[in-house]
């Protein structure tokens, strides 16, 4: 098994703003190994979310290439990228992005349904995941009936139920209070340590950064430095 889950080679992302090129990423070289808990940190406009998006196949680099689980994405079609996101990646967004007309269980189950998993197995896996995250009693509730922290847990259950090789979390604490954020981060750390889930978060929240074992600092679209939890003390 390849130990490198994400490999970025000279990744550049340029946006055109009124004909003026804006460099969101400038030749980033970056690797994530299996089982790491990485936080991409930096001020607004540093490129952390852009890096997360190109790793997740939600955006394409202007130049350079990215490999996820050993597969280079440069020539992937839209549908192939969709397949990659569905089968290999798990996403947690800052706004949870649950489907309002589905219950918590159905929100978790629907991603398996997209994968073509059979009904009984789907239900069992969704319930197991909700149980693991401590929200199985909320399985029948719709997102509107859940608190922000509960919704984020459902979103994490949805992201993990497919057993992805990589969990990408973009500002996962943006809409949560400190106590709920700590709960969430404890959960992510537990998943990382006990289940070996590889996690990459983009955040400017020091609390989130403090839970990551590897902190990558971005500035003006480039990696400005990185620290490891042990070194950081």
């Amino acid at each position, binding site marked *: 098994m390849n130990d490198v889950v994400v490999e970025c080679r000279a990744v550049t992302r340029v946006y055109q703003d009124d004909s003026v090129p804006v460099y969101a990423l400038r030749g980033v070289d970056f690797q994530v190994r299996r089982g790491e808990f990485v936080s991409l940190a930096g001020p607004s406009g540093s490129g952390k979310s852009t890096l997360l998006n190109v790793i997740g196949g939600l955006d394409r680099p202007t130049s350079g290439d990215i490999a996820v689980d050993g597969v280079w994405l440069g020539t992937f079609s839209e549908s192939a990228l969709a397949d990659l*996101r569905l089968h290999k990646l798990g996403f947690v967004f800052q706004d949870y*992005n649950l489907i*309002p007309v589905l219950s918590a269980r159905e929100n978790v189950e629907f991603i398996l349904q*997209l994968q*073509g998993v059979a009904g009984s197995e789907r239900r069992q896996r969704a319930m197991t995941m909700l149980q693991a995250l401590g929200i199985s009693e909320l399985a029948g509730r719709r997102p509107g009936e859940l608190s922000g922290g509960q919704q984020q847990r459902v979103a994490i259950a949805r992201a993990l139920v497919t057993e992805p090789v990589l969990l990408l979390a973009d500002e996962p604490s943006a809409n949560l209070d400190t106590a709920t954020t700590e709960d969430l981060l404890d959960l992510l750390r537990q998943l990382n340590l006990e289940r070996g889930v590889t996690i990459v978060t983009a955040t400017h929240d020091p609390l989130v950064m403090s839970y990551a074992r590897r902190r990558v600092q971005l500035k003006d679209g480039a990696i400005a430095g990185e620290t490891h939890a042990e070194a950081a003390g």
Partner: protein
Amino acid sequence: MTAQRRSMPLSLLFSLGVRNLFRHRRRNFMLLLAISVAVAGVVLTNSLIRGFQADMRDAAVDNLTGHIKVLAPGYRDDPGIDKRFNVAEGWHDSLAGVPVAGWAPRIRVPAVLMSERETRGIELVGIDPSREDISFVGDVAVSGERLANAADGRLLLGKALAEQLRTDVGYRLVVMAQGADGLNREAGFRVAGLFDGDGTGLEKAFAFTGLERLQSMLGTSAVTEISVRLEHDEPPLLDTAVRRLRETYPAQDVLRWDTLEPQAAAMFEYADMAIFIWFLILMSALVFGLVNTLVTAVMERTRELGMLRALGMRPGTVVMQVVLESCIIMAAGVALGLLIGSGLVWWLRDGIDLSAWSDGVELAGMRSTLVPRLRAGDVALVTGMSLLLGVLASLYPAWRAVKIKPLEAMQR
């Protein structure tokens, strides 16, 4: 790199589609209502057009035409006793196996009717009353007496003709017509009864007497026509009957009702087209409403659709979701519309009284009561075409949905 084959999660999309319809209940209820009313309107109108169509055909067939007629060549252009033929012995054996409702031999010749006060040119028809259950003569309302049999030497007149001739039941009239030998014949007939046709056209055009009596007056044992009525009038059955009769009467003309009554046949075809055009006009107008609703729904859910794409839903699956939502609301509207439309047709099952417009109605070859007729084929057409329009209406909104970039959508 190409994508792997993945089957469409139809049950998920269907479930999402149904639930999404309940997100904006008032808006979708109004759309559902609009579709239902339109479909109900189409069903009712189609049924009335079918009723009108059937009425015209039945009237054409009832008015002494039948489904098929055997005539001497040239009779249609110049009707007279010189265009006559003999009824072949056992001729109806040729129709064995064909569901024949009945047949009637007749003589139809131009004649002049004279009362003491008036004279009128009419068509004199010699009939066998026992065989005329295939035409309007069999069940027309009569004041006085009907003709008793083929030998009955009395006249059955229309009420309107009797008024024109200023005569009545029991009065005596003189009939003048050309005989088989080409010489004029004249005979006295007493009026047995007056029939009340559906409109004055029939009443003024025809006078009936017994076939044998008229043959005797004209000096012939032949007839000018044999009218055949079938149990039903599907084209293959008609074709079979026509083919067999042509074998039996190779020297005569054997013609279908739509050849004998081209105007009614043309109106029959027009009605088919009218049903289709009416449906397209009404439903096309509705499609704009559906497109508008779907585009609004897609725009409102831009963020959600972007998220679905981000999580791995393929563009084709997004298209299918929008198409399915359109089809679901269309199918629900069609089902409700069919229910309402069928209910209206059932409510009007005894017919709509058009006697207030009897002149126009008669001119159109219809009867004074229009009974709507609901046909399974028309229901299938409305259902199928509506669903097709539902798919077409969803294509533009689906295209808009596919154009959504997951990242941009989620950043909104």
